[in-house]
C-alpha cells in the first residue's frame, strides 16, 4: 500500500540522470553555438546602445522638449503635456534623470521590437485557426512562466547585459500585442469585409484598407499593454545587468534603503502614467470618426 500514500515517482537516479542529460546538452549547445547566436543579436545590441546614447547624451532641455512635442502631437491635450512636463522636472530634480533616460530608451526599443514581431504574428493568427491553435498556448506559457526561469537559458547563451534583458522583457511584453492584433482583426465587421470582397479587393488590399484600419483601436490597446508590461519588467531585467531605474531599486532591496526604493519606484510609475496617457489619448484620436453618431 506504499504507492497509495506516497506518489510513485520516478526513481532518484533516473531523474538525476534526466536532468543531467538535458543540462549537459544545453551547455554543449551553448558552447558550440553561443557565439553564433550572439552574432545574430548584434544588430539589436547596436540599436540599444545607439538609442541609449541618444537619450543620455542629449542635453536634458532638448529631451524634455522632444517628449513634450511627442505628447502634444499625439494627444493635442494641454493637460497631458503639462503632466509630462511636471513628471520629467520632478524626476530630474530628484537626480534620477540618467537612470530614467536609460529606462525610457530600453522601453522604446522593447516596444518597437514587440510591434515589429507581434503585429505580423497577430495578422497570421487572425488568418488561420490552425496558427491560432498553435500560438495561443505558447503565449500562455510566455505570460505565466516565471521570468526567472527563462532568464536562465538566455543568460547562459548571451551572458549578462542589455540584449538578454531585452529578450526577457520582449518575451514578457509581446503577448498582449499579438493577442489584441489577432482579436482586432477577427472582430472586423463581416459585412464590411464582404463588401470589400464584392468590390474585388485582394488579400493585401483587404488587410491594409479594411482590416488593419478597423482593428487599429484594438491594436493600440495592445501596444499600450505591451508598454505597461515592459515597464513592469524593468526591475527584473536589472538583475541581469540592464541599467536604468531597476538597479537602484535592486540596491534598495538588498540594503533596505526605503527612500531610495520609493523614489525610483515612483519614477517608474511616473513614466508609466506618461506612456499610458499619451498612447491612450492617441488611440482615441485615431477613432474620431466614431464619435459623432447620428441619432
Amino acid at each position, binding site marked *: 500500500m506504499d504507492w497509495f500514500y506516497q506518489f510513485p515517482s520516478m526513481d532518484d537516479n533516473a531523474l538525476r540522470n534526466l536532468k543531467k542529460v538535458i543540462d549537459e546538452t544545453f551547455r554543449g549547445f551553448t558552447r558550440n553555438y553561443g557565439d553564433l547566436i550572439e552574432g545574430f543579436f548584434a544588430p539589436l545590441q547596436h540599436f540599444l546602445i545607439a538609442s541609449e546614447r541618444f537619450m543620455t547624451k542629449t542635453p536634458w532641455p532638448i529631451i524634455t522638449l522632444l517628449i513634450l512635442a511627442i505628447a502634444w502631437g499625439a494627444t493635442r491635450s494641454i493637460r497631458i503635456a503639462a503632466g509630462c512636463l511636471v513628471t520629467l522636472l520632478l524626476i530630474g530634480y530628484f537626480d534620477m534623470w540618467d537612470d530614467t533616460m536609460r529606462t525610457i530608451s530600453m522601453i522604446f526599443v522593447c516596444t518597437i521590437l514587440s510591434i515589429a514581431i507581434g503585429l505580423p504574428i497577430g495578422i497570421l493568427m487572425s488568418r488561420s485557426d490552425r496558427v491560432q491553435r498553435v500560438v495561443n498556448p505558447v503565449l500562455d506559457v510566455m505570460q505565466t512562466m516565471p521570468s526567472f526561469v527563462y532568464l536562465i537559458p538566455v543568460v547562459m547563451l548571451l551572458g549578462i547585459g542589455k540584449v538578454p534583458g531585452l529578450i526577457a522583457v520582449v518575451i514578457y511584453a509581446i503577448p498582449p500585442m499579438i493577442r489584441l492584433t489577432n482579436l482586432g482583426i477577427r472582430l472586423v465587421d463581416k*459585412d464590411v469585409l*464582404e*463588401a470589400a470582397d*464584392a468590390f*474585388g479587393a485582394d488579400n493585401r488590399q483587404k488587410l491594409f484598407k479594411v482590416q488593419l484600419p478597423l482593428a487599429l483601436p484594438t491594436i493600440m490597446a495592445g501596444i499600450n499593454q505591451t508598454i505597461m508590461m515592459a515597464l513592469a519588467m524593468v526591475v527584473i531585467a536589472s538583475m541581469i545587468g540592464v541599467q536604468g531605474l531597476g538597479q537602484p531599486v535592486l540596491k534598495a532591496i538588498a540594503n533596505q534603503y526605503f527612500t531610495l526604493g520609493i523614489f525610483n519606484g515612483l519614477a517608474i510609475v511616473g513614466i508609466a502614467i506618461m506612456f499610458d496617457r499619451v498612447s491612450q489619448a492617441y488611440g482615441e484620436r485615431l477613432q474620431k470618426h466614431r464619435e459623432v453618431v*447620428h441619432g
Partner: protein
Amino acid sequence: MAEHAFGGIAIRHLYKIFGPNAGAHVEAVRNGLTKTELNERHGHVLGLRDINIEMPSGSIQVIMGLSGSGKSTLIRHINRLIDPTAGEVLVDGVDVVKMPEAELREFRRHQTAMVFQKFALLPHRSVLDNTIFGLEIQGIARAQSIDTAMRWLERVGLKGFEHKYPNQLSGGMQQRVGLARALANDAPVLLMDEAYSALDPLIRTDMQTVLLDLQKEIRKTIVFITHDLDEALRLGDQIAILRDGEVIQQGTSQDIVLRPADNYVANFVKEVNRGRVVHVEAIMAPLGTAAAESGQRIAADLTIEEAVRTLASAPEGDITVVDPSGRPLGTVTFRQLAGAMVNAHETNDHATAIAANAA
C-alpha cells in the same frame, strides 16, 4: 470603352446545399428529395433548388421572398460571394462559377457593383473616400476617381457631405453613399441586396424614386432583392418570387398581381394596392365591331389609379383605350376601373370576418 452590348445575366439549374458534403446530395435533391428530408436524413440545408432566371440587359430584375427563402443567397451567386453546389451563372455569356480566383477578382472589379442592406461602409473613411473605394481597388489614380466620385455623390444628392464620416449621416444618407460607391464603379451589373430594407418607409420610397430616375440614364442590369412586394412591383421590370429556395413564379408585375401562380403568391398579392400596378389594358373590354369613337381616350399602359385620376373630372360615358400610336384597342367604364381597384375576394373575406366578429 469600346461599345459592347452587355449580354445580361442567365442563371441555369442552380443548386446550393449548405453542409460539409454538399456535392454528394445534389443528385438526390434533383430527383425530388425535399428540404426537410435532406435536413433530417443528412443534416444538410437546402439553400436553392433548380433556379433558372434570365435577366435581360438593362432591366431591373426583382427577386422577392420572405426571410429564409434564399434570396440573399441567390444574389451572392451572381458575383460568387457564395459558391454554388451545381449549376451555371452566366454574366455576359461567361460562367462565373468556373472563373479562377484572379479572374473572379477582375470580374468583381469591373463587371459588378453591390449595395448592401446594412450599408457596409468603411467607418474610418469619409463619404468621399468611401465612394472612391471601388475605384481605388481597381487601381485608378486618385485625382481621376475623385472626379467620378464627386459626380455620383452629387447625383445621389450628397453634395456638401463628402467630408463627413458615415456615422454622422442618417440611414437614408448612408445608403446614398452605398449607392454612389456602387455607381462610381460603372459596372454593367448592379446588385442590390435588400438595399432599402433598413430604411423607414418614406425614405425608402424616396430612394426607389432615385433608383428609377437613375436607371433611365444608366440602363444597368439591376438585380434587386426585397421582401416587400410593393417595392418589388414598383421597381421590377421582371419579378421572381422565391420560397424555400425555389422560384414559384416569374413574370412582370401585371402577371404577378393578375395571375398569381398559387395560394402563397395570391396571399401576398391580396394586400397590394392594385390601382398602382394593374394597367388599364388588363381590364378593358376588347373592341367590338363598332368602334365607339366618342368620349374620352386614355393610353393602354396607364395604371388604373392614373386613369381614374385623369377621368375623375371628365364627363360620364364610354372611355376608349388606345395604344401609343393612338389606335383604339378597347373600351372601359369608370365603374369597371373603380371595381378593379379593390379585389373582390378581399372584400368578401373582410365582410365574413366582420360577420364572424359580430356573432
